[in-house]
């Protein structure tokens, strides 16, 4: 293995296109996207509806593969992996935060957070419990540990989702419009939480948003228009 270079990107997209068949037509959701994301980035993907934000996140999140070009996660091209390997990759390297939280309704807060660790295996029960408790505490939900998602507010649910995404200590966390279903105050708090974790653990965060306020929290902003990168620039620290 070569010595790590500071500029070595954790995610690299080279000439990435994604077509969706739509009846007899083909929707070109992404058209030749080149993008390098450094380790520890806190990057927002912006753009109008239909511009390809979700498509981009899906490719980076390894839930889909590009039609053309290459998506590399830590140098590994996702097109070369089997479905099973992609799943393993997601389990170990990636974390997901969803717009609608997507918690398992029949499990309580603790169990939702514990789930990825159970899928990974390898930890003793005690170690696992400690990690889950620590994570739940980090998102400020210790009092709600044994509650089920339907007993929580939207913001609390998204905190559970964040804890679930981070409990495995992933390299990259994907968040597709994580604040779209929250009011602006709660949304702001969620972004603050993500930002804190990014600062502490250097976890790479890639999130999409429509919200200018949320964008302002990012350190880098990529703007998509019609499946192409229209702008890519750093953002001045808000506070």
């Amino acid at each position: 293995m070569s010595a790590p270079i500071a500029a070595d990107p954790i995610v690299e997209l080279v000439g990435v296109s994604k077509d969706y068949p739509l009846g007899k037509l083909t929707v070109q959701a992404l058209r030749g996207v080149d993008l390098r994301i450094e380790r520890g980035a806190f990057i927002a993907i912006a753009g109008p509806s239909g511009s390809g934000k979700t498509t981009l996140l899906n490719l980076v999140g390894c839930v889909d593969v590009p039609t053309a070009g290459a998506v590399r996660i830590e140098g590994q091209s996702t097109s070369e992996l089997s479905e099973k390997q992609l799943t393993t990759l997601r389990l170990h390297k990636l974390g997901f935060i969803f717009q609608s939280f997507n918690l398992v309704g029949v499990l309580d807060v603790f169990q939702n957070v514990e789930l990825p660790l159970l899928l990974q295996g390898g930890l003793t029960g005690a170690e696992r419990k400690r990690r889950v408790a620590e994570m739940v505490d980090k998102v400020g939900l210790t009092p709600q540990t044994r509650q089920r998602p339907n007993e929580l507010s939207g913001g609390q649910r998204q905190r559970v989702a964040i804890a679930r995404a981070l409990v495995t200590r992933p390299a990259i966390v994907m968040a597709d419009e994580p604040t779209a279903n929250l009011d602006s105050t709660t949304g702001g708090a969620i972004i603050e939480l993500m930002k804190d974790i990014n600062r502490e653990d250097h976890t790479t965060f890639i999130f999409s948003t429509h919200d200018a306020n949320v964008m302002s929290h990012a350190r880098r902003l990529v703007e998509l228009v019609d499946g192409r990168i229209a702008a890519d620039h750093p953002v001045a620290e808000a506070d």
Partner: protein
Amino acid sequence: MAGSPLAQARVLAQMALRSLASHKVKSLIVGSIMVFGTALVVVGTSLLDSVEAGMERSIVKSLSGHLQLYDAEAKDDLALFGGATMGGDDYGEVPDFGEVQRVVQAQDGVEAVVPMGLGIANMSRGSELDRALDALRRAVEAGDAATREAMIHRVQRLLELTRADLTNSRAITADTTDLDANLAHVERAQQAAFWAPFRGDDLDAKRAALDFLDTQVAPAGGDGVQYYLRYLGTDLPLFARVFDRFRIVEGEPVPEGRRGLLINKRFADSQLKLKVARLLDDLHDAVTLNDARIADDAALTAKARQARSLYGSLTLMLAPEDAAALEAALRAEFPDVAPTDGQSPLDALVQAALTVDDDTLKARYAFFYAQIAPRVALYPFRVGDVLTLRAFTKRGYMKSVNVKVYGTFEFAGLERSELSGAANLVDLMTFRDLYGQMTEAQQAELKAIQAEVGLERVDRADAEDAFFGGDGDSVEKTADGSVFGDFDVARIEREAGTRVADDRPFTREQMVDGVVLNAAVVLKDGVDLDDAQARIQAAVDAAGLRLKVVDWRAASGVIGQFVMVIRGVLLLAIGIIFIVALVIINNSMLMATLERVREIGTLRAIGAQRRFVMAMVMLETLVLGLLSGTVGAGLGAALVSWMGSVGIPAKNDILVFLFSGPRLHPAVGASNLLVALVVILVVSLISTWYPARIATRVQPVEAMREA
């Protein structure tokens, strides 16, 4: 693949349980079907096992033994308890039982080999008029005036009844020529002048009058009753020893080396017993054992009405002194009864005693057996009587044999079962006589013929033609071979008084070394049936005996297939219920899966493999199956043990037989529970297979789609 299988399984189980709890209606519907299905399997298989065990006891320990051997080339399958054709079956024959016994007895685990031969014989009893005339003739010949007068009185009474019968028949018959002729004869015999010679001294005139009565009047008085008696010829002492259900009821066993007949008590009660007594028995059984009510049951009401109408058959049988005693007893019981037109006071009293309804049945039934039954002949035979059995030999000659009735017997626990009355028992020598077995002298003669003609083998049947064809003494040839054609009932009845039993003793060797139709093998306790069957078949094959060995189920006839049929029906019912369950579980799980596409997609996105999703869906039904299965098995077991403690009453005679007693006490075996649980779990898995496959196809991107 890494993972914490145990912890994963635990969370999956928890997810399954909670998912079931959060879909209460679905879980309840599917769960109820599973509970019902499991309970049905437990109850059904437990009952069937118990019935089969009961049936095995009934069949094995009464007639069949564990295995039966018979001619490998037999045209029909052995049916000890009766098959499709009653009696006409051809089971081939086993020419030398002795050899079979030696070969089979040498096998391990064989308790006894019992020779057998089934046949059907005819036994007849004349009409009342026949018997009264017979008694009158004897009184006339003996010059016994008192009996003569009593008998004349009885004949006259019977003529009145005959006339009434004929008149009734005439009203509903188109061609009355024969009836008119009979009526004329009866009316002539009813005139006072007809009886005048009996008080005179002219014996010839008396005989002429008697002949007229015998030949012209008696035939109009109805046929005598003929009975068909299914008999099993066997080694009676051995039979009594190894078939432990066998029990002498009345009389004594037939001694070793003697000829004799044992009449089946059940057969006697249901076929031979006096009609009015049978009717009362039926009513009494229905009311006391089955809690039936005469008033609510058309068939019972009809029987009660018929019993009431049969008073004449009783009063006619009474000897004069018995009639007087009975009349006194009845008068005390029924002081207010007055005769209607044409009835004697005794008739009216007996009729009153036979008039039963739900309130009076028990008392009148007891009265009947205390006062009336002892004074009449309830059965057409008495222990110690000599009966004439008539049967067709294989070649169609009628043979008759006189045999002494030593007693009656029953099969313990099966007293009420009609099927247990399937056969009466005779010694093997009598069986052979009726079957057409040649005597030693005849066999010697056959050998001489063979030597003379130079034939290797003369067919036994041909030989029978040669010997019996011209022999009018013991064999009656019938031209058309019709079963028990018209023989003169009155004549047979008259012979009865002079019948002499064939009482030549025989040795064990004579009995053993000869023809039988089949043989029962009784095994020692704990011997494996299938294994024994295979070994014995191999042994008889090796000995060159052309025999087939069948188990008790196959040997018993239709009844043996009964459990198989019920098992089939049960399997079908269970099958249908489970197919319904399968469809319902499949549908509801499929719907649940479609509702959960986002959840499944999320699990896939965060790193769950397809296998995990598969396990998640499957486990949900499996947990439901396990819970419902346990509840269902518990309910089923509880139901069976409740039935076991209370007992299921055998409401009819077939059930008595199947239950091997008046009540079935079923028990649950571990195997019944295990089978039920396995079945329900397999059904759960199969029914969830498709929804689970669908679930594994859910793509992780589904998690990203907005609702």
